[in-house]
């Protein structure tokens, strides 16, 4: 299944094109990622940029499995800004805000996609 936010073909390859396993893996993503993203929000609010970098770096490969192109591009930019500690004069917010917003939308679409499998 493919839409403008993600493409499940990569995930399907990982699990040998087994729909049940695909569903289970989507569920694991839905169960675990919101907490991680919430943590990123919290770190960003408290300007703990190194922690933001570490978390984004950690979860990015999972987003790449779903081929979430736009979210991944945003994550790459967040990583670039925060890698060696964020400099306040750079406009990091232009990447963080859309990432948090789009993530919520993607979760809804992903949940729908799972139910259709």
């Amino acid at each position: 299944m493919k839409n403008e936010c993600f493409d499940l073909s990569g995930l399907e390859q990982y699990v040998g094109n087994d729909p049940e396993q695909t569903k289970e893996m989507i569920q694991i993503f839905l169960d675990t990622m919101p907490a991680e993203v919430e943590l990123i929000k919290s770190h960003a609010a408290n300007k703990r940029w190194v922690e933001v970098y570490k978390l984004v770096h950690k979860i990015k490969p999972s987003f790449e499995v779903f081929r979430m192109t736009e979210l991944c591009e945003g994550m790459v930019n967040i990583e670039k800004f925060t890698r060696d500690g964020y400099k306040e004069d750079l406009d990091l917010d232009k990447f963080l805000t859309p990432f948090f917003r789009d993530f919520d939308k993607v979760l809804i679409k992903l949940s729908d996609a799972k139910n259709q499998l």
Partner: protein
Amino acid sequence: MRSFRLFIVEDDLFYGELLKRHLQLNPDNEVYLFKDGKQCIENLHLAPDLIALDFGLPDISGYEVMKKVHIEYPELPVVIVSGQEDVKTAVDLLKEGAYDYFVKDNDTKDRLWNLINKLREKEKLITEIDELKEEVGRKYNFNNIKGNSPAIKDVFKLLSKALKTRITVSITGETGTGKELVAKAIHYNSSRNKFPFVAVNVAAVPAELIESEMFGYEKGAFTGATTRKIGKFELANTGTLFLDEIGEMDLNMQAKLLRALQEKEIIRVGGNDVIPIDSRIIVSTNKNLAEEVRKGNFREDLYYRLLGLPITLPPLRSRGNDIIFLSKYFIDEFCKENDMIPKKLSGSAQDKLMKYPYPGNVRELKAVIELAVVLSDKDEIEPEDINFSNTDEVTNFLVDECTLAEYNRRIIKFFLEKNNNNVLVAAQKLDIGKSTIYRMLKNNEI
């Protein structure tokens, strides 16, 4: 096939679970997922075959986990799977002992899959090599050197002495007496039997190539040296180097060999690095090396260094009833290998076998017997089934054109050897006075 046990250490639970499920598509893979380094270390008793380790773990860094793993299990392959595309980090980790470094991307799962297949194949090959080593060891067991004659029993006594130390052994004997078999028996029954046995036939290597063959060479050492080549000395390190037909080595190379043996080190051709060597040396020749020293063809200092424990393999014609003993053994072996009913040797066939001088020794006897088994139509091998390549024992003496005195010398020597150097028996059989033989012995004519 046993399971391949893999640890995945990954703090992103989704990604770790995904890798686990993917690798479990092969039911022979037994995959354990741990979310941090501590869990991984606590479970090392499960004896994994591979650890796929995330570099950025929450508790201990991947680098630290790898170091701890390698303290307990230095041979255990640890592959780092990381989101870092930093080449320096990858190189540093590989230097510190990581088996490989994978960046997390769409190909990660395939790389891991291929790595597991490669490690499985490697394990299979190691098992096969161990089995082959054991088989080779059995093949070259002393029990496989056959014979009951006093001459061969003397050889067995020396062989058992050769095993107790790493003394250099020099084996002399005519062609086909089994010099290489004896060298292998010494190696495979010694404490070095798990290490390589490397044989070099000195006569078969052109003089201009022997140095690079023995010591190896560096890239660019000469035209055509496009890569470094490891020489036989290095290949035989901690094992045994067998130099067959050492008497054929030219004087220039003899000097280099002597230096290598004295200093216990070599330098590759075109190189500067001194490489220590620890090889047991066994040499063989069908020449009389002492005679070659006298003629100036062989260095005296090298001769004494190589002489070590000298073992002289008797020619088959002087091993009396071993000829029949070996013949029966070869018949049984050949029939077994070819699913044939074992054949017997008739009395007259045995007589024919005993009369022949076997210039090709045991090797020739084996060939003669195998042909006889094939030619024989009955349960028993008869004289007509036995064919010697050198027509018969008399014409064998006539192959070379010699003086009458030389023919006399050869005939007397032949009868002496055939009768265990018993002068009286030889003289009786030749119908000559025993003093004739004693005189020839005194004058070193025979």
